[in-house]
C-alpha cells in the first residue's frame, strides 16, 4: 500500500473509512515509521483544533455587546404613524368641535336670541358667507356632513330635549338647510337635550362673548334687504338628484334664488329617513351649488317646526298632486308662496 495522504489519515482517524480501507491502512501504519509520525501529527492537529474551536465558546464576563440593527416594531412603520397622525387630528378636531356644537345648540327657552347669535355665527363661519349669505348661505360639505353625523349618531341623553327646544331653536334667520338639520338633530333626541340638562346659565355665560359678537353679525345679515324677485320665466336646472323613491330638481331663476322641486310617489312614506338618507352625492352637489333650500325639508316639514317659525324663516313649500302620474310634488324655496305658485305654473306649463 502507498503512503496514505494526510486527508486519508484524517478520514481514518475520524472513523470515516470503510472497514477494508481501515484495515489496510492500519496494517501499513504499523510498519511505516513515516506514516506513524504523520498519524501522530494528525492526532495532534485534531485534538488541538478541537481545543481551539472549543475556546471560541469562552465568553468573558464583560462581553462586548454587539449592536444589532434595531428591529422595526409594527407601530413604527410609516403607515401606522400616518394613520396615528390622522387619528390624533381627527380626535382633536372632535374635541374642539364638540363644545362648539353643544354651545351652539344650547337654546334655552327665553334665550332664543343667544341661540340665534350662535347659529348666525355658524352661518358666518362659512367661508363664502357674505351679504348674500342671508338669502343663500352656503353650508360647506364638511359642516353638512358633521351635522348629518350628529343627527345620525346621537349621544346617549338622559332626558329628551324639551319640546320647545326644537321649535324655538330653529334659527330664525338660518337657511333652510340649517333648520332641517336642527330639526333632525332635536327630533332625534340629540345632545341638545342633555346639554340642556346641565347648568345652562353657566354654560351660557361661557358662550356669551361669542354670542354677543355673533348677534351683531346676525343683525347685520338680517338687516340686508331681501330681494324676493319673482321667479323668472327661465328656470335653470342646477342639479338633479334621484333616489329610489324621490327625484329632486334644483332650479335657479335669474334672480339667483334656488328652489327645490321634489317629486315622489303619492303613497311614499315621507319621513326624516328621506332627509338623513340623502346620498353623499346629493349632499355634496347641494353644498357645491350653494342652494338655499337644497337641504330643505324635501318632505313636508316635521311636526316639530311650528308654522309660525316657518313663516319667519321665509322658506315656503307648496305641495300638489298630479293625478295623471299619481306623484306628489313639493316645491320649496326662500321665496313667498305666491312666487312658488308662479314657479309651479311655469313648471307645469313647461312639462306640458
Amino acid at each position, binding site marked *: 500500500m502507498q503512503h496514505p495522504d494526510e486527508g486519508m489519515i484524517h478520514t481514518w482517524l475520524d472513523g470515516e473509512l470503510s472497514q477494508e480501507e481501515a484495515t489496510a491502512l492500519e496494517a501499513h501504519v504499523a510498519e511505516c515509521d513515516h506514516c506513524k509520525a504523520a498519524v501522530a501529527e494528525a492526532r*495532534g492537529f485534531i485534538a488541538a483544533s478541537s481545543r481551539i474551536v472549543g*475556546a471560541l465558546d469562552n465568553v468573558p464576563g464583560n462581553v462586548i455587546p454587539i449592536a444589532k440593527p434595531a428591529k422595526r416594531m409594527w407601530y413604527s412603520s410609516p403607515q401606522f404613524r400616518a394613520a396615528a397622525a390622522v387619528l390624533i387630528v381627527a380626535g382633536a378636531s372632535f374635541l374642539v368641535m364638540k363644545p362648539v356644537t353643544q354651545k351652539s345648540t344650547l337654546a334655552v327657552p327665553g334665550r332664543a336670541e343667544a341661540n340665534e347669535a350662535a347659529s348666525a355665527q355658524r352661518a358666518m363661519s362659512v367661508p363664502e358667507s357674505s351679504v348674500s349669505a342671508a338669502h343663500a348661505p352656503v353650508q360647506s360639505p364638511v359642516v353638512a356632513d358633521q351635522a348629518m353625523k350628529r343627527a345620525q349618531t346621537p349621544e346617549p341623553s338622559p332626558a329628551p330635549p324639551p319640546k320647545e327646544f326644537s321649535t324655538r331653536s330653529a334659527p330664525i334667520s338660518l337657511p333652510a338647510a340649517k333648520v332641517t338639520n336642527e330639526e333632525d338633530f332635536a327630533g332625534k333626541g340629540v345632545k341638545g337635550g342633555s346639554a340642556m340638562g346641565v347648568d345652562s346659565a353657566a354654560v351660557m355665560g361661557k358662550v356669551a362673548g361669542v354670542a354677543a359678537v355673533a348677534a351683531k353679525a346676525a343683525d347685520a345679515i338680517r338687516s340686508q334687504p331681501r330681494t324676493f324677485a319673482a321667479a323668472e320665466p327661465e328656470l335653470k336646472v342646477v342639479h338633479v338628484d334621484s333616489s329610489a323613491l324621490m327625484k329632486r330638481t334644483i332650479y335657479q331663476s335669474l334672480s339667483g334664488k334656488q328652489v327645490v322641486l321634489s317629486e315622489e310617489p303619492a303613497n311614499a312614506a315621507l319621513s326624516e329617513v328621506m332627509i338623513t338618507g340623502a346620498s353623499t352625492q346629493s349632499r355634496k352637489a347641494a353644498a357645491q351649488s350653494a342652494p338655499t333650500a337644497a337641504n330643505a325639508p324635501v318632505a313636508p316639514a316635521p311636526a316639530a317646526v311650528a308654522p309660525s317659525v316657518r313663516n319667519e324663516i321665509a322658506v315656503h313649500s307648496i305641495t300638489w298632486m298630479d293625478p295623471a302620474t299619481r306623484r306628489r310634488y313639493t316645491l320649496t324655496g326662500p321665496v313667498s308662496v305666491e312666487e312658488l305658485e308662479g314657479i309651479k305654473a311655469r313648471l307645469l306649463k313647461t312639462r306640458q
Partner: protein
Amino acid sequence: MSDVDRLFRTYNEQLVRYLTRRLGDRDWAEEVAQETFVRALRQETIVNERAWLFAVATNLVRDEARKDARRRRHLSLLAEQEKDNYVEPEQTAMERAQETAMARKAIDALAERDRLALLMREEGLDYSEIAEALELSPGSVGTTLSRARRRLVESYEELQRDREAREKNAAS
C-alpha cells in the same frame, strides 16, 4: 410533538454552538438558528436532517456575509473603545479571554469552506453530512478537514508565539 419540535430539541444546541463559533455572537447565532428551524417548518420533506439544517444555517450566514463584515468592524471599534475603560481582570479570566481572541483570529484566518467543514465536524456531522451541507464530494471532506486543522493549529501557534514575544518584550 411535531417534527420541527423534535428537530429543534435534537439539533438546536449543536446548531447554535456551530453558529456561535462561526459568528462569534451567540445572539446572532440563535437568530440564525431560529430562522433555520423556521425554514425547516416550511420544508415538506428533509432527507438528511442534520446536513440540511447545517447547510441552511450556513447559507443564511453566507447571505449575511456583508453584514458580518460590518459587524466585525463595529466590534473592532467597540473593542478599541473598551480598551480605554479596561479594568484589569483576574489573570485566569484574562488568559481565557486572550485564548478566545486568538482562537477567533485563527479560525477567521481559514478559508470559508475549511472553516465551515471544521466547525461542522466539531458538531459531530459525519463526512457525508458535511459533503451534503457544503456541496462537496464526500472524498474531499477528509482533505478539507486535514487542511483546516493544520492551518488552524499553525495559525494559532503563530499567534501564541507573537503574544509570548510581546510579553517578553514588555517584561524586559
